[in-house]
């Protein structure tokens, strides 16, 4: 193998700056998208468990739609197609005046996509609660809504912290797709450094290490949340 090692390139300007700015965009895309995914996903997941059949079906349709189309295709649809479908004024605004359109689009697309996956976790969390525990809430006179608020959701969310961890990790990885519409996040910057310096090994190693660090931090954070919220006596609790 014929290769000139040069690890120093990673600490030279402008390349160090590129990496750090890439890292920043990765975090900005992933975290903003997670907020959307969590809110929308919770709503959709809850709606999948309500008595009304039409509502349940619509929520299920959301999940199937967003789960069965590759994220890349969804991203392009949001970026190239949706502005055309909007009412004229809004469409024009999105195309001409919306600040940072690539970033906003990436966040919305990634958020909507991940919401479908979060919804599945939320639904399964709600459905693992036994029928009689739900009845117990109703039996003391809680309304169905109160029963969701005080019994079913608090229990579900505590159960699903571990599977949500994996979705949260995935969103950082999936944020790399934003590069296809021009967001210069971490993977894009590593590629760019390779193109400029031909030091692909160093550039990709740097990106890999940074993703590993993100993973480690997310896992630690979620473990902390899990310990703080876990229902005493449930599997794995101490």
């Amino acid at each position, binding site marked *: 193998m014929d290769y000139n090692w040069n690890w120093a390139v990673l600490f030279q300007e402008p390349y160090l700056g590129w990496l750090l700015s890439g890292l920043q965009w990765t975090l900005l895309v992933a975290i903003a998208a997670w907020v959307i995914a969590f809110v929308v996903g919770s709503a959709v997941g809850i709606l999948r468990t309500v008595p009304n059949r039409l509502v349940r079906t619509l929520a299920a349709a959301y999940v199937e739609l967003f789960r*069965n189309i590759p994220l890349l295709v969804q991203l392009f649809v949001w970026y190239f197609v949706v502005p055309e479908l909007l009412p004229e004024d809004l469409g024009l605004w999105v195309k001409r005046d919306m600040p940072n359109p690539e970033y906003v689009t990436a966040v919305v697309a990634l958020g909507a996509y991940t919401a479908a996956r979060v919804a599945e976790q939320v639904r399964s969390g709600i459905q693992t609660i036994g029928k009689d525990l739900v009845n117990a809430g109703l039996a003391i006179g809680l309304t169905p809504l109160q029963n969701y608020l005080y019994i079913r959701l608090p229990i579900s969310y505590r159960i699903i912290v571990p599977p949500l961890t994996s979705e949260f990790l995935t969103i950082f990885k999936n944020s790399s797709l934003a590069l296809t519409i021009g967001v210069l996040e971490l993977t894009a910057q590593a590629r760019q450094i390779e193109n400029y310096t031909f030091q692909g090994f160093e550039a990709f190693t740097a990106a890999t290490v940074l993703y590993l660090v993100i993973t480690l931090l997310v896992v630690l954070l979620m473990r902390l949340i899990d310990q703080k919220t876990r229902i005493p006596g449930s599997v794995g609790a101490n």
Partner: protein
Amino acid sequence: MGDFDFQVIIESLPFLFDGLLISFQLTFLALIAGLAWGTILAVMRIWGPAPLRWFSAVYVNIFRSIPLILVIFWFYFLVPLLIGRPVGNFTSALIAFSLFEAAYYAEIMRAGLNSVSRGQVYAGLAIGLSPRQNLQYVILPQAFRNMIPVLLTQAIILFQDTSLVYVVALSDFMTSASVVAKVEGRLAEMYLFAALVYFVICFSGSLLVKHLQKKKVA
């Protein structure tokens, strides 16, 4: 959007179909290779000596921590360097996908292997099978059967993931659609059509998975 142009879709169908074949090819080959390597990794992780266990764990955790696009870039850069001459995009992509998917299959296999009860393991040994025979004839077949729905789901994900070869311009279905989209200036038509095709394929696949799961329960 009043001027939705079906003609452009119809005219590009043969071209798109070639792209779709590439997507299927890549999915199929990466599935086989990833499954094989993933199974080895899982076996190493469960029964291997310490260094192999350790290697497997590190491998799986690294690949599961980084984006597929980065892996594609890695191998797009690395493979020609290692081989010493340029190879096609397809080869690089196939290697990237196989090694990447293997990490996910390894985790699925590990769960599946652990799902085979200890009693079965002892029963195999008790009738005189060697540990390797036991693995081959008793444990793996049962593990695979338990895992078929999960493996299929992962295959659907893999098929969706192959769209990412767009970043190295390998002419799969997605790339072909976007080529037509740009050349003809028909972005809405082509991307919506691509979405529809992927949806029909993946949704059918997921219905099949549901069907298999029901059968398993019954």
